[in-house]
């Protein structure tokens, strides 16, 4: 974990909500603590308030009265962004078209009055760090999307910010590049060890980069936790469905079993007589012989995706069940198969939501 080696500032968000001038409630009052050196990912669909939260931390939005933003216990609520010493990477990168790559990277240093020689040295360091050697004198419109992303990152960290804020920094790139840069970004963030707040709607990005993830929905925090917690122990149906693939099963309970159209599935720790909503991840379901299985159904669809194949199995629950089977398993559409699910991988969710 990077906290041990971390520097930068801790961030404390206290009761921050945001209502826009037109009355739109973008963010319900929320509190959040981010430790020094931690990478916190704000994850959610568009319009969930994650960017508003980031902009409040940055100082680009003022929270509704009663909200406070503290960096290392110092109240920053009334401090404008230019005096918060944060580095920010925008979704559109916001690189200055009137300056070269080197001037973009050095702009924050110039503002801070760093002498030319030192500035050049620092720019060279960052060019090296972000792998953009040879592009120093290019104009911004001569760069590819990936190069722009690196310049934006170099510019943001050049000023040695206490907190690094990234607003969907990879969204504008194509899928293959996004995946490669995600790995690079991860290594870079670990190496820098500064407090990082990262906004994305991409759960794979959130999983790979985050020490912790804040899942947001409709202006509220739905859950905060480490990637594994969020994935294996979602606290609501929204989180379960938003992170990864999930089968949501709604069934009555009898004798410690969920009673389903396709059979009876044993589950742990639930009283009889109540109904539950349960989440079952596709990769936790094993395909077994139909005759000896607790649950059985008919294969409706087989999608081969290379490393595995996703089966859609009907007749097990009221809705089709997704099953991730090994890519070597031979199944045909219409075949009757049995499903085996370990009771401890069935996650019970609250009935509301």
């Amino acid at each position, binding site marked *: 974990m990077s906290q041990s080696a971390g520097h930068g500032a801790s961030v404390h968000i206290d009761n921050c909500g945001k209502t826009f001038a037109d009355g739109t409630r973008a963010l319900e009052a929320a509190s959040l603590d981010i430790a020094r050196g931690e990478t916190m990912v704000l994850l959610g669909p568009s319009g969930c308030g994650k960017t508003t939260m980031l902009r409040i931390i940055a100082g680009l939005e003022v929270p509704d009265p009663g909200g406070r933003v503290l960096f290392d216990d110092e109240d920053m609520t009334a401090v404008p962004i230019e005096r918060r010493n944060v580095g920010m990477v*925008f979704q559109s990168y916001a690189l*200055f078209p009137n300056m070269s790559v080197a001037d973009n990277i050095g702009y*924050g240093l110039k503002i801070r009055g760093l002498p030319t020689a030192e500035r050049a040295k620092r720019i060279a360091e960052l060019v090296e760090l972000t792998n953009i050697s040879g592009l120093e004198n290019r104009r911004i419109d001569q760069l590819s999307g990936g190069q722009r992303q690196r310049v934006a990152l170099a510019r943001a960290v050049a000023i040695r910010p206490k907190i690094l804020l990234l607003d969907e920094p990879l969204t504008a790139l194509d899928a293959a590049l996004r995946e490669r840069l995600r790995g690079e970004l991860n290594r870079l963030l670990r190496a820098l060890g500064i407090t990082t707040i990262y906004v994305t709607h991409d759960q794979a990005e959130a999983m790979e980069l985050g020490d912790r993830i804040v899942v947001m929905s409709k202006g509220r925090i739905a859950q905060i936790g480490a990637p594994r917690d969020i994935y294996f122990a979602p606290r609501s149906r929204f989180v379960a469905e938003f992170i990864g693939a999930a089968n949501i099963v709604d069934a009555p309970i009898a004798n410690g079993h969920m009673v389903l159209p396709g059979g009876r599935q044993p589950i742990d720790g639930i009283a009889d007589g109540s109904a539950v909503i349960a989440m079952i991840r596709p990769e936790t379901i094993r395909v077994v012989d139909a005759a000896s299985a607790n649950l059985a159904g008919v294969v409706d669809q087989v999608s081969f995706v290379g490393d595995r194949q996703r089966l859609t199995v009907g007749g097990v629950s009221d809705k089709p069940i997704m099953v991730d089977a090994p890519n070597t398993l031979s199944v045909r559409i219409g075949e009757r198969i049995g499903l085996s699910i370990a009771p401890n991988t069935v996650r019970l969710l609250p009935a509301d939501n």
Partner: protein
Amino acid sequence: MRDRLIFAAQLAFTLVVAAFLVVPAGLSMAAGVTVSYFRGIQSGLTLQWVAQVWELYAGTILLSFVIAFATLAVTLAAGVPAAYALHVRGGRVSRVIEEIITLPLAIPGLAIALALLLTYGGFSDFRRSWLFILIGHVIFTMPFMVRSVMAVFATIDIRTLDEGAASLGASPPRRFRDVIVPNAMPGILAGSLMVVTLSLGEFNLTWMLHTPLTKTLPIGLADSYASMRLEVASAYTLIFFVMIVPLLVAMQMLADGKGAR
């Protein structure tokens, strides 16, 4: 073959239209250097009319340039920040302000001049100075500056650039200087070109606002046409042309050079 015919026809048409516009201007300027307009070019060529215009109206030409560049200075100093504020602030109030700034385009210059006279005519020192004409020109040209700068802002997401500069520690004035103005340059240059041209040629407003001691070039032209020989007015046109064309070409080249970057 057919393509070439069409091309030839189009070319001929274009040349005829161009000639329709250029020939009168050419004739007028030629008249300015002819001894007698009624006897035509065979009466001989002379620069006496040009000299006479210069003698009588040099002051108006100078004043025109002073007013044009003062108008430019005011529209730059007020119009560029205004365009920025209107763009960033957005919303209904900004729309209304933008419409108000644009209004002088729809109101006859005479009406604006009349309003200015009614309001400020009593301040006689102000009324008699060239600053009174400057005010009229600023009102008339401001929408061209504000609009062309706002058009550029609309294409480059200036708000995010501003936020980017702010995140790096730049204060608002610094951001305006380092990021906003350089990136709005194509719009600023286009607007400047319009403002100078319009101010130099403005007649409606100026005719109402001028005094015998504050005549601009177009007013002098009207005056010479009304009270002098036709050759003098024509020589005046020639001087106007010779002064304004190089200026416009220079500004256009500057704008193209910056815009292409």
